[in-house]
């Protein structure tokens, strides 16, 4: 074979091989193209499937959310609808407590009352839960005094723990020295609920509330809240259940301790809303420990900066003799005596001018506070008698207490021999100033006292359902005074109202009229002029023996009850505020 022939053969083979390769490549390319097309189709199908599924899912989610919101709205509005008549039931049963009932009736009333209270608690809880679930829970972040909050929250359980004879301990991290930012009300609610539970399920031992800085995160503090008790404890298998809505550890628990089974669910949601988590450890028979952590933003505001200014009582120690208070109005009696007790001043109370004028014959007093209008003997007459007849107290300072702003009355008071008059309602600083003015040696302090008192001003927002202007004008410089006023009011007025009730029932119009007259100004002092007007009307109607008085009184009973509740709450709130600021 020649080289040429050989080369020709090689070339032929190469050409054939190339064609074969091209065919193979061509068919591979086709395969690849088909596979790619299939892949594309598959891809598109998948994409559209994903879009479709996502849409379906979103639709379903939307529907579910809508359903949940509808449910929450339903619950919220139903709860509201139930609350209104329920408040009437509770209010009326409170009023019934004062009526003259026999033992059997009283028992019925107790059942009625406690059932209504349980129902109210349940509805409040449901309302809370539905608010949280429907996203209507408003979180208000602002600086607050955590230390004071803990103290107040714990303090409100003192009566219960004292009754049960269990220890109530509070341990607060001393490193918390400034105001922190979070939602004060929500933290308070969570804590109150937890402490309440702990107290409820503990019969002996202690309940401890511990609040510590778990971690300093720079601009925030991670605070650990811990509520530990030595109560009945929770079975391990029930631990997960207790945070669920309407779940309690067992049916026996529900029977024995009551409750709605919503408390812990609410706490959990609140804590989660504030960005925290809650855990519980428990040993049956030994007790439980609930722990939650929340991050609170720091502030530069030191806790001391909001301290409460104090009334200067310097000079009171120079009083050697007691002060005589001549006053028939129980509310005023209590108010003055509370202040005098606080200032360590000895005092005696005479119910009317006659008693006072008798007492001053035998005993030396430092000063007399004299009401003007009193039964048996008025302040004018008593003053005249004292000035004329008393040997040991002849030159005694007599300070008139009058609710009237009429100049004529004041002139008459001064004419009758009184040295000064105080217009009711007066503030503690006015009272202390008046006393200091007549203290023989310590009189130089009077000026400095009044200066001190003028500096008093504290941030406190009064309840808006009251006459704000009146409250701010009279009490904003001295909240302690406001608190005392409310306390006295709450002690005296319910009794008076009950008396008025009896007087109206027994158609004793004269008494009714005078009781209403007596009650009237108290409501004005509380910043409730509308109810003041009501008693004014009752006084007038009773005076003319108008039967309409019964109707008016019955109609206003609920408002009255509401007002008493509001004042009670307001007083609690104010007390907390005062403790926090001291």
């Amino acid at each position, binding site marked *: 074979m020649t080289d040429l022939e*050989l*080369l020709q053969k090689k070339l032929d*083979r190469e050409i*054939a091989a190339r064609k074969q*390769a091209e065919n193979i490549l061509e068919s591979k390319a086709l395969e690849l193209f088909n596979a790619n097309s299939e892949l594309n189709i598959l891809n598109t199908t998948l994409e559209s499937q994903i879009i479709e599924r996502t849409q379906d899912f979103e639709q379903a989610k939307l529907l579910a959310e809508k359903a949940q919101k509808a449910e929450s709205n339903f619950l919220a509005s139903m709860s509201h609808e139930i609350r209104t008549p329920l408040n009437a039931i509770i209010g009326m049963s409170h009023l019934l407590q004062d009526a003259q009932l026999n033992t059997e009736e009283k028992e019925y009333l107790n059942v009625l009352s406690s059932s209504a209270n349980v129902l109210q608690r349940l509805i409040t809880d449901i309302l809370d839960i539905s608010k949280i679930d429907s996203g209507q829970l408003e979180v208000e972040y602002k600086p607050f005094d955590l230390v004071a909050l803990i103290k107040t929250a714990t303090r409100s359980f003192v009566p219960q723990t004292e009754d049960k004879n269990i220890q109530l301990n509070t341990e607060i991290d001393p490193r918390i020295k400034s105001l922190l930012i979070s939602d004060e009300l929500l933290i308070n609610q969570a804590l109150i609920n937890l402490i309440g539970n702990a107290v409820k399920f503990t019969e002996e031992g202690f309940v401890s509330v511990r609040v510590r800085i778990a971690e300093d995160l720079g601009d925030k503090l991670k605070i650990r809240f811990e509520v530990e008790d030595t109560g009945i404890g929770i079975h391990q298998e029930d631990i997960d259940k207790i945070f669920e809505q309407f779940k309690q550890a067992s049916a026996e628990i529900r029977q024995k301790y009551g409750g709605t089974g919503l408390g812990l669910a609410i706490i959990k949601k609140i804590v989660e809303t504030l960005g925290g988590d809650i855990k519980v450890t428990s040993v049956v028979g030994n007790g439980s420990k609930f722990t939650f952590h929340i991050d609170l933003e720091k502030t530069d505001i030191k806790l001391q900066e909001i301290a409460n200014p104090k009334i200067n009582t310097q000079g009171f120690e120079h009083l050697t003799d007691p002060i005589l208070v001549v006053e028939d109005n129980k509310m005023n009696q209590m108010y003055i005596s509370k202040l005098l007790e606080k200032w360590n001043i000895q005092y005696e109370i005479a119910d009317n001018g006659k008693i006072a004028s008798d007492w001053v014959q035998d005993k030396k007093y430092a000063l007399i506070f004299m009401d003007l209008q009193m039964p048996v003997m008025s302040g004018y007459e008593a003053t005249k008698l004292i000035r004329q007849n008393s040997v040991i107290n002849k030159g005694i300072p007599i300070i008139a207490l009058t609710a009237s702003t009429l100049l004529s009355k004041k002139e008459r008071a001064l004419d009758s021999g009184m040295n000064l008059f105080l217009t009711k309602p007066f503030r503690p600083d006015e009272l202390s100033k008046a006393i200091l003015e007549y203290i023989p040696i310590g009189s130089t302090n009077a000026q400095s006292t009044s200066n001190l008192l003028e500096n008093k001003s504290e941030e406190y927002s009064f309840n808006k359902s009251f006459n704000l202007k009146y409250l701010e004008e009279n009490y904003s410089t001295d909240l302690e005074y406001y608190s005392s006023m409310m306390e006295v009011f709450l002690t005296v007025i319910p009794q008076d109202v009950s008396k008025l009730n009896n007087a109206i029932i027994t158609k004793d119009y004269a008494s009714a009229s005078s009781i209403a007259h007596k009650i009237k100004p108290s409501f004005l002092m509380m910043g409730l002029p509308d109810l003041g007007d009501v008693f004014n009307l009752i006084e007038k109607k009773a005076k003319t023996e108008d039967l309409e008085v019964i109707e008016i009184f019955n109609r206003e009973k609920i408002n009255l009850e509401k007002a008493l509740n509001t004042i009670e709450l307001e007083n609690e709130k104010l007390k907390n505020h005062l403790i926090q600021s001291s």
Partner: protein
Amino acid sequence: MKGVVFTEFLDMVEQKFGYETVDHILTAEELKSGGIYTAVGTYEHAEMVQLITHLNAKTNIEVPTLLKEFGKYLFGTFQSNYGSFFDKASDSFSFLESIEQYIHVEVKKLYPDAELPKFESKRIGNNTLELVYYSERRMSDFAEGLIEKTLEHYKEVATIDKSLVKEDGSIVKFTIVKQ
């Protein structure tokens, strides 16, 4: 068997013995493929046996020697086409171990129908590797050529001891001892 093995084999024969020998072994006996091979095609293993047999007859060189030489020759092709596999290993032992664990796995992905030999490797001490070859093709000599070139590639000196585990040569144990 992959076409690349045939085209490389014929290239080697042409280089070493001239195209006349190529023409001879392609025409000495009828081949199913007609003696036309392309690297992208796939052909029966039997044709390779036919070609080697005729080359042996023509050149009087023993089949084992031919296969070993072909192994060495093909290594060069592997090296230039699939260099990255060599870069991944730092020495011959780890490369040889990677054939079964990695390279053949990748080859199977690209050519699911490829029929590959199986290797079992076992290190004995720092310097010794036992490599057991399993293949019905009984081309352990071809493998030996590749192993020799591998050692050379990593600039390592080693002795290769080869022993038949199975008489027919379908299982062969290589003991490679580095010096």
